[in-house]
């Protein structure tokens, strides 16, 4: 077979193989990692009604991996009846995802301004995280839709990082939070990650600066499992299973072809 035909065949079978889990959903059980379990237990240990900060931070590309984790944090916060604020510091794309997440969850019993606020995006990355920790109202004047936050009862309770009981960092890189928020305020913090940032964040989890850490889409699927639902992260993990099997299969077939050709020559 010609090389280009073979390549087209591989691409076609790849997309077909990865579509299979959507047509025939198969659930392969996933064991729960300790760092994920720790994250879950940390949230459970915070008293109901406390104030949480949920940070949505990812670009459109990393969204498939990180968004389900942030969404799981949001759902857990609602289940624990936390009051919460949503922020974005790195990537403005995430504001839309935060809105989408708020629209998709059940917010009965929650009142905007009193129980939750969506603050939107503040430019400046690490410097604004630090400024936010020192004086929230010095940095933020309006929420994501541009209304003033001064009169919101929830925002009156939050003056600085000290007023927030738990930080749920739904971002692919929570390192700036660790240097700017954990170190000065000794805050309780759990974090999401993506496949490439997990290794570097794991050292912070080992040194207990992060109380819990989710390992990319897999961690998201584990967390979804702990919360008792199968969401996008689970779907991604199903695709991952098929994709890895496909890759290993492709390697095996590639070698068979290689050796058969080698014998003929």
């Amino acid at each position, binding site marked *: 077979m010609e090389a280009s035909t*073979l*390549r087209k065949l*591989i*691409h076609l079978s*790849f*997309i077909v193989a990865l579509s299979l889990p959507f047509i025939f959903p198969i659930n*392969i*059980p*996933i*064991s729960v990692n300790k760092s994920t379990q720790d994250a879950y237990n940390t949230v459970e240990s915070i008293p109901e009604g406390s104030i949480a900060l949920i940070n949505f931070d990812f670009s*459109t*590309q990393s969204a498939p991996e990180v968004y389900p984790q942030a969404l799981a944090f949001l759902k857990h916060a609602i289940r624990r009846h936390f009051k919460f604020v949503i922020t974005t510091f790195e990537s403005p*794309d995430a504001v*839309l995802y935060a809105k989408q997440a708020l629209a998709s969850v059940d917010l009965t019993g929650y009142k905007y301004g009193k129980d939750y606020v969506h603050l939107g995006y503040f430019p400046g990355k690490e410097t604004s995280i630090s400024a936010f920790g020192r004086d929230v109202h010095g940095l933020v004047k309006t929420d994501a839709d541009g209304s003033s936050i001064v009169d919101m009862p929830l925002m009156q309770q939050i003056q600085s990082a000290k007023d927030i009981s738990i930080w749920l960092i739904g971002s692919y890189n929570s390192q700036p939070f660790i240097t700017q928020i954990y170190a000065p305020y000794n805050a309780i913090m759990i974090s999401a990650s993506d496949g490439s940032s997990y290794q570097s964040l794991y050292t912070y989890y080992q040194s207990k600066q992060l109380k819990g850490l989710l390992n990319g889409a*897999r961690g998201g699927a584990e967390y979804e499992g702990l919360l008792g639902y199968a969401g996008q992260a689970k779907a991604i*993990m199903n695709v*991952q*299973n098929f*994709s*890895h*099997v*496909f*890759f*290993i299969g*492709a*390697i095996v*077939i*590639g*070698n068979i072809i*290689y050796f058969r050709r080698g014998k003929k020559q």
Partner: protein
Amino acid sequence: MSLIRRDLPVWIAFLVGVIILADYVFTFPGLQVASTTLTNWAVIVTAFSFGIGALNIIQRQSKIIIRRDKYWIYSVVLIIILFGTLGIGLVGSINHPYYKILFDNVMAPLNVTMSSMLAFFLASAAFRVFRAKNFESILLLIAAVFVMLQNAPIGELIWPGLPVIGDFFVTGFAAGGNRGIQIGAAIASIGFGVRILIGQEKRWFGRTE
């Protein structure tokens, strides 16, 4: 004339580089201000350079349109879209509804789709690369297969020991090799940087006169 042409740029590069380095080694407030200012200036100058990029595109595409080269019609599309985006963005703002359509409904999906192409390309590359041609490629193959079995939940299902072996490959062998490559590259990049600073490596000048 050669003073401005040749010597001044080398001296500026040297001074800027040394200030930024010195700020890192010594803690001295004046240095910190100087180095932050210089990095900010570099960001501003880089922002100016995008105009050069745009001029390059416009120059090239208009030549294609004038000469009626093959595919010239696509160049017309490109120029119209470019100026359209620029116009809406400057006259309106980046919150203008049309700008949002261009950004959220065209550019963002294109961006994500292009990144999904990586998976396809990886599949066809894996098919070619992971072949047991010699001992070296067998090692490449073994490492890859074990790590894949570690990453997919299905590996754990086959045999609980698989993730342990995979982990040894990632955090043992790969971490070591990776570190070696990184340290080597770091040493060499410092060597290259020093040669630029002292004006021995001048190919960044472009023209030799």
